[in-house]
Structure formats: C-alpha cells, structure tokens
C-alpha cells in the first residue's frame, strides 16, 4: 500500500483520487504499488530504507485546464503535489518527491512541440517534450537549428532547465536560454511571463523580460508554480565545430591557464561550456577541453587566437581532437563517440553497463556540485579543501578531478557519490555528502543544484543574515500557496503549516 499524504485520511484520499480521475480521466490516476514503483528514484540515496520518499499516487493531466483542475482539487484536500516534466532527474532525485505521500503531477502527456522558428531560432514547448522529441521535430522539418544538451537525451527540455541544468554548447545555461513561461499558480490561475503577459503577444519568445519585475527565476528550483509552457532560444546550426585539448604541465600553471580559459569564454571567443581536468600526473597537470562552434573561418581564427594566448605558459601543448562540418551524414554521425556536443541526443552515458568498483553493476550515483569562481586560485583551494574533506569523511580518491566551466566566471566542481543498497554504506555516503556540503559552506561555496532528499540541507548553507533569503522565499510561498500544496520543502522552502517539520529535522 503506498503511503497516504500526511494529515489526509484514507477516505479523503480516495475521494480526491476520484476527483482527479474526473479531471484527467481515471486511467491517468495511478495508485497501484506497481505504478508507484516507477516514480521511485532509481538512484535514491535512501533506497529501500524507511526514509525513502514514496509517492502516494501519480496524476497525468493532458492540458493546461486539467493542470488547473488538479491544483484546485489538491487545494481542496490539502494534498501535496510534486510536478515533473519527464521525471528523469537521475543523480538529483529522479521523479520522486521530497516527502512520502506526495502525489506526483506527471506532465509527460503534455508533450507537444508548440512552435519552432528557424528564422528567430527558438522553440515553444510543453513540459513532456524531451530532447529526443524536439530533435526529431527539428530533423523531420529540416530546420537548421541545433540543440544544447545534457548527457542523457531522454530528459525534458523544460524540467532540465527548471532545475537549472547544464548543456554542452554555447547555450549551456539552459535556464538562461529560456524565453517566456506559462505557469499555473498554486491557486489554479494561469499566468504568462515576459512579453507573454500582453494579450495576443507577438514577441513572447523573442524577448524574455517584458515590463516590470522579471519573475521567471521564481519558478526554477522552487515550489511556486507548475510551468506548462516554456520558450527556448536555440543555436542556429553552425558551419563547423572544432574540439581541442590544451594541457599545461605544472601545478603552478593553473592561474594563467584558467585566466586564459576564462578570458576566452568571457570575451565570447569560446563561449561553450568546457571541462578542466586535473589528472595531476606527467601527461599535464591541467587539461582543458574546448569547443569552437561557428563558421570555419571564424573558428580557425578563434583557435589561432586561443593558442597565442595560451602560449604565454611554458610547455603548453595543443591537440586538435576533431573537426566536424555540418550538416553531418547519418554515417558520419554513427561513428562519433560524443554526439551530445553536436546537438544529437543520446543515452550513451548509460551504455557501458554501470560498471563500478569492479562490481558487476553499480546502483547509480548522486551529485555534489558546488560552484567556485573561475580562477586558478579557487581551483587549487577547492582541490586542497576537498582532498582534506575526502580524508576526513573517509571517501575513496583525492577529491574532484574534473571541473565544468558553466556560466561565465564560475566552475562546477563535480563530485559523484555512489548509491549503495547496503544500509550501512548508504548511511556513510549520506553523511559524507552532508559533510561535503557543510565544508563547502564553510569556505563560501554553495551547490548549484542538489538531489531532492538533500535540498533542505543545501538551502541551510545559503544562510546569510539569519536566512534572510529563505525567509523571503517563505514569505512568497505563504502568499502564493497558503495551503502549501506545491512541493512542500522543495529547495528548503516550507509552507507555514509544515515549517515545524523543518525545525524538527534540524
């Protein structure tokens, strides 16, 4: 039997399910054990433990009106809802809510690509549109547009952006690439943001701001509304892509090395996301993988300029890894190992069979992802701090090996912790995760995103002036969602009636 929402009787719950069924069709209310299982987080840090959050049901609306009705019914019964677009947020919580008994509002059926403009390079999509879906749409219509993708292609364009996920090209900041939203508020009312607030708007996907306060950010990593439409700017298909690797030999090279990478990014010469690895051995202490997208002549000149800049570092080495010319033939695509950088979604990240620690198969992982400044000094500090932290928390390895250049001026220092199905090991890793978060906070670093079960802990770190930011969020939460029905506790934001739960956790 799936758990009931807290404070809701079995009779109320069954009445609510019936009303949800009238709104969306009874076959789209899923509440059997077998169905509920599909909404568990396959990478749960609490797998099969009492604390693993298990939803009570899932409801699948197909239209905005149905979303409104579901939200109103949830208000009537005070049943919490947890919206997902495709619910494949593996490493950050999957489709599972924070609290057991919550109903998953599964928006996968709303999978319409509403508009794609080649001329102005944008798309307007519903929540359930995956990167695969949008890619197929663009390909079938022969549009000269390119997607900016996370590694797994099965996630949603919208959900990924609402969790402020990371792409791999020049439009890497997926939330930053959005333009205009339609949101169902916790009251059930529909609102459009930016230019979309003008009835009959002609420039909803052309300009993000409209007039007055810019509120879109309030609906990402939050529990203030259910987003039902979202516009995205797309990259016009470039003529070519050049992949290169630059290595610098010594640990001390880090400052000029990262300064140069940062300059190239901030100046728009190499704006795509990049990786910096630190194998800390003779192959070069630092190594950056850079991507140049654009007309061949332009990227040749950019690469030449980049080499000039890096050449100030003695012993720096350059390697050209690949040059792709668009459009690519299907045969050419077949042989390319990392298709994501070409805007082609895939699932290759899962293809190698989850092999881990010499065991036949692992159980997945979850991500600790603090943001540090894009400077050499910050990277060295992060390496030292996390190397110490790894020792202290008895984690294997020496800390972060890779840094992702995401956004101008900042890096993500990505560390993944293995999911364990042995309770003792799982508990140890959870403590290590919380320890890493605490240690990062002590050094002025917060995470850019967090697995759902650690969201409240992540927000604890953002505590300046006695949690002024969280108190602000909660003032907004109480005003918009007085019954606290949307994702209570998500990102550490609790509605008034459940705030005591946080104090109890503390």
């Amino acid at each position: 039997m799936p758990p009931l929402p807290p404070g809701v009787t079995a009779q109320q719950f069954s009445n609510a399910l019936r009303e949800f069924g009238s709104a969306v069709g009874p076959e789209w209310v899923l509440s059997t054990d077998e169905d509920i299982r599909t909404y568990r987080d396959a990478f749960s840090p609490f797998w099969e433990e009492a604390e693993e959050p298990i939803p009570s049901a899932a409801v699948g609306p197909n239209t905005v009106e149905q979303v409104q009705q579901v939200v109103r019914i949830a208000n009537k019964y005070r049943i919490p809802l947890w919206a997902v677009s495709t619910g494949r947020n593996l490493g950050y919580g999957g489709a599972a809510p924070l609290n057991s008994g919550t109903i998953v509002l599964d928006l996968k059926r709303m999978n319409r690509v509403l508009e794609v403009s080649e001329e102005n390079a944008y798309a307007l999509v519903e929540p359930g549109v995956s990167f695969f879906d949008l890619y197929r749409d663009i390909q079938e219509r022969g549009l000269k547009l390119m997607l900016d993708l996370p590694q797994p292609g099965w996630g949603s364009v919208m959900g990924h952006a609402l969790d402020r996920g990371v792409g791999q090209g020049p439009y890497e900041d997926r939330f930053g690439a959005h333009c205009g939203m339609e949101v169902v508020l916790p009251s059930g009312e529909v609102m459009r943001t930016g230019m979309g607030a003008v009835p009959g708007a002609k420039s909803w996907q052309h300009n993000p701001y409209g007039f007055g306060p810019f509120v879109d950010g309030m609906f990402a990593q939050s529990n203030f509304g259910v987003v039902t439409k979202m516009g995205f700017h797309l990259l016009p298909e470039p003529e070519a892509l050049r992949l290169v690797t630059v290595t610098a030999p010594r640990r001390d090279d880090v400052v000029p090395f990262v300064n140069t990478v940062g300059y190239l990014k901030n100046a728009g010469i190499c704006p795509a996301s990049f990786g910096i690895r630190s194998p800390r051995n003779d192959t070069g202490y630092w190594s950056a993988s850079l991507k140049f997208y654009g007309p061949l002549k332009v990227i040749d000149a950019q690469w030449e300029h980049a080499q000039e800049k890096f050449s100030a570092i003695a012993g720096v080495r350059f390697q050209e890894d690949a040059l792709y010319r668009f459009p690519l033939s299907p045969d050419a695509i077949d042989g390319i190992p990392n298709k994501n950088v070409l805007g082609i979604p895939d699932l290759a990240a899962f293809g190698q069979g989850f092999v881990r620690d010499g065991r036949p198969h692992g159980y997945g992982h979850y991500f600790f992802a603090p943001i540090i400044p894009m400077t050499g000094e910050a990277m060295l500090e992060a390496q030292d701090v996390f190397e110490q932290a790894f020792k202290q928390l008895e984690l294997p390895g020496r800390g972060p090996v890779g840094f992702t250049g995401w956004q101008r001026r900042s890096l993500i220092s990505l560390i993944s912790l293995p999911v364990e199905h042995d309770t003792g090991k799982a508990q140890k890793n959870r403590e290590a995760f919380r320890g890493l978060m605490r240690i990062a906070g002590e050094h002025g670093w917060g995470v850019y995103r967090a697995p759902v079960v650690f969201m409240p802990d992540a927000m604890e770190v953002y505590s300046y002036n006695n949690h002024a930011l969280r108190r602000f969020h909660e003032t907004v939460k109480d005003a918009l969602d007085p019954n606290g029905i949307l994702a209570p506790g998500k990102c550490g934001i609790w509605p008034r009636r459940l705030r005591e739960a946080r104090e109890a956790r503390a």
Partner: protein
Amino acid sequence: MASRREFLQLALAASAVPLAARGVLAAPAGWADESTAPTPLYAVVFDERYPASRAFAGEAKRLGLSTRGIGGDVTRLWFDDLDRRWRQEPAAIAGLTTYGALFCLDVLARDYGMRTRFRADHYLDRAAGRVEHVMAGPAALLRDADTLMRGQAAWGRGLARVVTRHPASPAPATRLTLVARAEHTGEDPAHLVSWVISPWGPPAWAAGGGPESSLVGERAKF
C-alpha cells in the same frame, strides 16, 4: 500428488546441466489458469560485442524472430525503431544485454505502458568456469527454464529459448537461481542481463492520452 513447490524442485533436480539450482519458489496463485501462450516478440535485442549475446541472437533468429544488434548504447534502436513502433502500439521485446541497456529500455518502455516482466542476471565466474543465472519472472516460464537451457553449450542460446516462451498474459512471478558450467566464455563480461519487456496494464503516456494530445510533428493549438 506433488505440490507445485515439489514439482518444481523435482524438475530442477532432474536437470543434468546445472551444477546447482536454488529456487525461491513462492506458491503462485492460479497456477492452473496461467496462460502459456507466448508473448509475440517484436524484436530480440543483443549486444554485438559479447559471444553469449550473439549466441542468444543466433538462436532467436533460428526460432524465426527478428533481431537487433546494439553496441551498448540503445539510442539508435530506440530512436529509429522502437519509439516509432511503440507510438503505433506497444510491442514486446526481449534481449540479452548489459544492465545499462536494460535500464534505459525499461525506463523508456514505461511511457508506452510496458514493464519488464522477466529479468535474469547472469554472473560469470570465468576462473571457476561457472555462470550463475538469477531469474525473476512468470512462474510458468521459470518452471521450464532449466529444461530449456539443458544441453546448451552456449548458455545464451538456452536463454533465447526461455525468453521466447514468455507468457503473453499477466502471470504470478517467482524467482529461480541456476548455476551452470560456462566453458566458452570468450569476451563475455562478468555481468549480463536477459529480459522481456511486455505490454501490460497501465496506459501509454508517450503516445498521449486522447484527442487533445499530439504525436511529435503535429502542431497543437495553444
């Protein structure tokens, strides 16, 4: 008359090939009513890199089934083939692949109202020349698994005979472990999985649920 449990144990004990067999044999309700009509399989998926998987495909082909090779990543298979097929109508597939490939197909298939109904983990101990098959699936299928795999030098081939008999209608599930000799291990990895994903029960999400929903490519009004 022997109970179901005894019947199964007898059947396993009679097998020549397995070195050992451990059945976790719940007494499934409605045994006598179980339909044994096999699931029509739209495709049999194998990993071209591994001999056991190739043997599995060879036998499936011999049994008249259509096979699809992958090199670990399921993207092309799903994007160019399964997704198109499943948008018309869910259709069962079976395979012998890495766990990663099954993980992806299992998640993707859920959106078309399908679930993994049979799964066997194959743990290869090359040094000992043994393979352990840890199976979970319809009891009627597992009852015959040992017999079907008996006498097969390539265990992948035996597995093909098992999955192709997967019953079409929902059936009570059980578990079974077989340990067998594995002589020609070649390049097989330490762990592979065989599986059947078949339509059953819940509605299909990806195809949309009614007249208002559209398949990809169609433009909806907003």
